[in-house]
């Protein structure tokens, strides 16, 4: 048996109308437009709703603390909750996630504690959590590089007959990088159990998608790799959850990779240091706020009588707890040990590196005020 899949997939372009199950106004999409899919069960929708609300509260709190200077930087996912939460809610605990800097709420929803998660953005260590414990790789900054890690990880699982799937997020801008192409191509030919979730939030910092590519859809790329491609309303958590679930199932059962483009919008600036007024009008932002992923799901659940006050109350409590825990985590001074800088570079000790460590230790011992002096 060979790793390479030499069969050829049927060739089909995605429908340019984004797949949706719940419309922006919170109504179920008519059955004939659902392309044979059913809405997820109400308990799943409630779970998606709860997670999105809590995640947004958490994200809002992080953004606020970042403005106060408690974090070095923070890229918010506000507006993208359906794509982020829809994806991770479709995942099993044993599946692995390969996220980017944008995807903190997804990582948080997977269970990584706030203090560990925000290490990188606060600045105490690049990645604060144990990727193996949470089956979540570090949030990657060099764009598109993590897509290849995901493919390799999935391929290793496949070679090890381990029936897991891997999901990775990719920004619209990052799809222009060569690594995205190589990831799609390797995944196709090795039939790696990897689900690529492209979050097309229509901007790469200031660059709009129209200057990024002339593709009609990013999902149109899939056909060039023999991979199934989907174009999904990325503000519809039900739709994202449905398509990602199916793709992960396919991946776990030997059906190979999937490329899913989620059309969404970044409501906040790129990060706190961005100035979006230079490149987009507030009318656009307002228009997209009207398609809010949380509101539409709330309306839908409401129309089904699936949100009562008790549920709202419990979500509100959970949200406030998340925000409080978040604040507390960031208000506690991080434990900083300069000696740790030399600890993890290699698994074995290098004498020359120990010399450098000892020199720093001596320096700090010599001048206990060195820290202030150099600031």
């Amino acid at each position: 048996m060979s790793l390479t899949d030499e069969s050829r997939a049927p060739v089909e372009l995605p429908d340019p109308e984004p797949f949706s199950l719940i419309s922006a106004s919170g109504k179920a999409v008519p059955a004939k437009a659902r392309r044979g899919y059913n809405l997820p069960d109400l308990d799943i929708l409630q779970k998606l709703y709860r997670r999105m609300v809590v995640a947004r509260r958490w994200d809002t709190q992080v953004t606020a603390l970042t403005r106060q200077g408690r974090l070095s930087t923070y890229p918010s996912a506000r507006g993208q909750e359906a794509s982020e939460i829809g994806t991770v809610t479709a995942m099993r605990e044993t599946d692995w996630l390969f996220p980017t800097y944008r995807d903190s709420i997804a990582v948080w929803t997977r269970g990584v504690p706030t203090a560990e998660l925000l290490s990188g953005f606060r600045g105490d260590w690049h990645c604060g959590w144990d990727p193996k414990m949470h089956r979540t790789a570090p949030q990657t900054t060099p764009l598109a590089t993590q897509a290849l890690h995901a493919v390799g990880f999935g391929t290793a699982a496949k070679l090890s007959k381990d029936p897991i799937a891997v999901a990775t997020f990719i920004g619209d801008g990052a799809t222009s990088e060569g690594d995205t192409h190589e990831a799609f191509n390797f995944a196709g030919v090795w039939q790696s159990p990897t689900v690529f979730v492209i979050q097309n939030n229509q901007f790469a910092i200031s660059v709009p998608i129209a200057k990024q590519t002339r593709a009609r859809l990013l999902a149109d790329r899939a056909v060039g790799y023999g991979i199934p491609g989907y174009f999904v309303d990325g503000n519809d958590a039900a739709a994202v959850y449905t398509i990602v679930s199916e793709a992960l199932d396919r991946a776990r059962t030997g059906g190979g990779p999937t490329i899913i483009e989620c059309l969404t919008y970044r409501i906040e600036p790129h990060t706190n240091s961005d100035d979006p007024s230079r490149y987009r009008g507030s009318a656009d932002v307002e228009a997209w706020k009207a398609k809010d992923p949380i509101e539409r799901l709330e309306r839908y659940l409401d129309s089904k009588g699936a949100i009562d006050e008790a549920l709202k109350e419990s979500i509100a409590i959970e949200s406030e707890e998340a925000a409080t825990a978040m604040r507390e985590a960031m208000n506690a001074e991080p434990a900083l040990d300069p000696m740790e800088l030399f600890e993890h570079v290699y698994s074995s000790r290098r004498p020359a590196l120990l010399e450098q460590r000892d020199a720093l230790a001596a320096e700090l011992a010599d001048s206990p005020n060195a820290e202030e002096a150099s600031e």
Partner: protein
Amino acid sequence: MAKTTSQDSQATKSTTQAVKPVTMAAALNSAMRDALTEDPTVVIFGEDVGPLGGVFRITDGLTRDFGEERVWDSPLAESGIIGTAIGMAMYGLRPIVEMQFDAFSYPAFEQIVSHVAKMRNRTRGRVSLPIVIRIPTSGGIGGVEHHSDSSEAYWTHTPGLTVVTPSNPTDAYSMLREAIASDDPVIFLEPKSHYWMKEGVADQSRPALPMNKAAVVREGTDVTLLSYGPTVAVALKTAKLAEEEDLSVEVIDLRSLSPFDDETVGASVRKTSRAAVIHEAAQFGGYGAEVAARVTEREFYHLAAPILRITGADIPFPAPLLEKYYLPTPERILNALSTWEWEV
């Protein structure tokens, strides 16, 4: 096809610059603005350099004033940016491109090392590539991972590249003008921690110091500190502190990393007989190794002590809250100088 702005006309030109204090960001912006105005073959493109003006606003207002056919946003792909810049330069344009941070130039490494650096030699001088690759470099701003690299050693080891770095607004202007006018590709490293440094522009009626020359920015007799980009300020601060210890420190701003100005540095070291080189990048195989090795080769019998390197440690650049333990400080430099046997 491309028009070369001569050294002299630049110097003349720069007399028309603002006389009030300007930031390095503004000086760089002016340099590009003036080049765009004078030379129709100059174009600027890269990630976010258009309407946003770059993440550091160095290209602020240029799309507005020169149009999207002169200054525009490219797709997000660094190899693509350098690769297409090569083609444009072959055609006869003078592209200025920005890599958003050092670490994000790495996807373009093959295009830079295998083509930008080699095209002229490959074609026996028939095809030059007048490309300027601007890279905001180094740390000191509390950047998250991948935003504080110092990549100079990778470029300076690559024959065919010219690598320069200004440490102040005046140099930023004249060196960028000269880089744009150069027929050879130039890696232009901009110390991002200095973008907002302000300076009264130096006497603009004198021609600017050529880009390939080092500058003695402070005279001294006991030690030569060799610095560049962000470490010039650190060296100057060290020299001030050293005064209190009656140590007379000469500070050199190398400015040009490749080529290296052996003459200016050699003269200083022959005078002081002691030298140290300071940079942010990791020490092992860093640019300081070349400086130490070549100065030692040339001036061995004038040296009273080994050339020291005060640099980043051999570890990845630390997270923001830990970078202060990594970056060379005046205290660390003075400590290091005190390890020399002074009574040889």
